[in-house]
């Protein structure tokens, strides 16, 4: 479908807002940094003679910038895949973890923590188990779902594998050392961006933008697929190939996001609804809008998590506490108008 000028303007405004929120987020945290110092640091990249406090540079470049980039990418990615899945499954109540990727990634991370692996390997294990879980779900749906609705068998298979990995995580928690390992697993599962380093973000950055581009360009096909398999096929869509491609891309993106942030619920479910209210249901504009709104949403929620108390609140908790009432508000506002 063609993008109208107003849709392009909305996306431009969202992009601008997300950049502004990211810059303002550099200001928030336990160590107070004046906005002026942030601008001085930004200016120093263009004008070498600009002076700024050295501590500001350390805090911003080593701690806050990686975290803000991570919030941007994770929020964007989860919302993008949530929107793509909602279109593909023809169900506005679907989230990116529907096919078991989060449970698989959670198990991988818990296993890595239990084996006392280093951060990079925990992330890798989480990523691989996330993908593995979805591959099992997809294979299971192919075996069981020949006669039934493909979406239904995928979702049921996702529920089964999620239950299995959740049980396996519980087993790991039972055997974990309750003083060190168990809290580490629990904190990981509650989600957070405190341990993020700039070097860990390059893969998710590349995957996110490639996925955003590909899914957005497939947006029209996803619109057609939302009318059901038979109608989409009769209009010329290769349904099986499209569904497989979307699942592969969404899984790679979600697994890479979860592997660096832990399990952060609600974003992928909630944000596509906000985006749909703002820009309409056409995926070609809905998907980039969801990405940007998701980025803005997680940046703001992460600012809250850092600043609301002296102890940092895990992101999974904050997104649920902010997300749930917000979702009720959206449901009330859009009842019958999803």
């Amino acid at each position, binding site marked *: 479908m063609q993008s109208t000028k107003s849709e392009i303007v909305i996306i431009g405004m969202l992009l601008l807002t997300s950049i502004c929120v990211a810059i303002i987020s550099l200001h928030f945290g336990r160590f107070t940094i004046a906005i002026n110092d942030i601008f001085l640091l930004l200016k120093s990249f263009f004008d070498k003679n600009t002076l700024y406090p050295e501590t500001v540079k350390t805090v911003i470049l080593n701690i806050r910038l990686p975290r803000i980039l991570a919030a941007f990418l994770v929020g964007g990615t989860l919302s993008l895949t949530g929107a793509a899945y909602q279109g593909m499954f023809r169900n506005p109540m679907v989230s990116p973890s529907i096919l078991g990727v989060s449970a698989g990634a959670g198990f991988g991370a818990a296993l890595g923590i239990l084996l006392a692996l280093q951060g990079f390997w925990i992330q890798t294990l989480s990523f691989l188990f996330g993908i593995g879980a979805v591959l099992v779900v997809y294979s299971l749906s192919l075996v069981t779902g020949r006669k039934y609705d493909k979406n239904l068998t995928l979702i049921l298979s996702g529920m089964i594998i999620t239950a299995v990995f959740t049980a396996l995580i519980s087993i790991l928690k039972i055997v974990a050392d309750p003083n060190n390992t168990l809290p580490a697993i629990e904190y990981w599962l509650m989600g957070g961006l405190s341990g993020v380093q700039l070097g860990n973000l390059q893969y998710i950055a590349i995957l996110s933008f490639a996925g955003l581009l590909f899914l957005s*360009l497939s947006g029209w096909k996803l619109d057609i697929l939302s009318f059901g398999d038979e109608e989409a096929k009769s209009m010329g869509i290769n349904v099986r190939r499209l569904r497989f491609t979307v699942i592969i891309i969404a899984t790679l993106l979600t697994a890479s996001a979860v592997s660096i942030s832990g399990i952060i619920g609600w974003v992928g479910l909630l944000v596509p609804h906000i985006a749909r209210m703002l820009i309409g249901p056409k995926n070609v504009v809905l998907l980039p809008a969801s990405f940007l709104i998701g980025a803005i949403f997680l940046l703001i929620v992460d600012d809250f998590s850092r600043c609301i108390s002296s102890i940092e609140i895990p992101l999974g908790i904050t997104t649920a506490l902010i997300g749930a009432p917000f979702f009720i508000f959206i449901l009330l506002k859009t009842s019958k108008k999803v």
Partner: protein
Amino acid sequence: MIQLQNIRCGYGKNVILSDVNLTIDHGKLTCLLGRNGAGKTTLFKTILGMLQPFEGTVLLHNKSLHSYTHKELAKKISYVPQVHGSPFSFTVLDIVLMGQYAHIDSFLGIPNKKHKAIALDCIKTLGIYNLTHKHFSKLSGGEKQMVLIARAMAQQPTFIAMDEPTSNLDLGNQSTVMQLAHLLKKQGFGVIMNTHAPEQALNHADHVVLLQNGGIKASGKPYEIINSKVISEVYNTNIELVTAQASDGKSRLVCVHI
């Protein structure tokens, strides 16, 4: 032309229809008639290529249906489903434009002004231009059916297959949809229709296919194959066909239950 040769089809291990031999021409209105469970939908899906037959061949323009790519097939046969739509609120123009998908060859697959003009043309032909920018979910059942017919037209196919297009409509909308079926036929489309109403087949169709006991009971011109006895047997109830004289001077056949 669609030719079904020695088709045996069904679901899983259940054979629903066997020994089906049938030719469907374009430029004609073909109605599939039969009781619930007689295999109308199965035959319909086989014709559309949604169901692979166990045996036999479906030829479309003398080429096996299953040798067509998805896009090639969409340019030959379009499908008007029973109304349900998308859970998302697309406008009428968005939906009709989707019919042009198979005709867009560009790498990015983005429709241009030409495709939009074709979609608008279909909307105008069906007389629903006033609905162009309305949301599909806000339309009445009859309006939705017309939008789906416009989308099928926008595929610019040879055949349009309609799955019980009047089943959920009031009398007025049933009449409108049947008039549209005639309009499509006049424009050169082959219209294939699955229906529960024998009167529609009698008074509108050029070709009727009667399904019974897992096969074709009769196939041909409506007045040649449909009579009170046959229709009573097909529907397993006593039905009499009565000729009624309408005020336009033309006589029509109506079904009377006795």
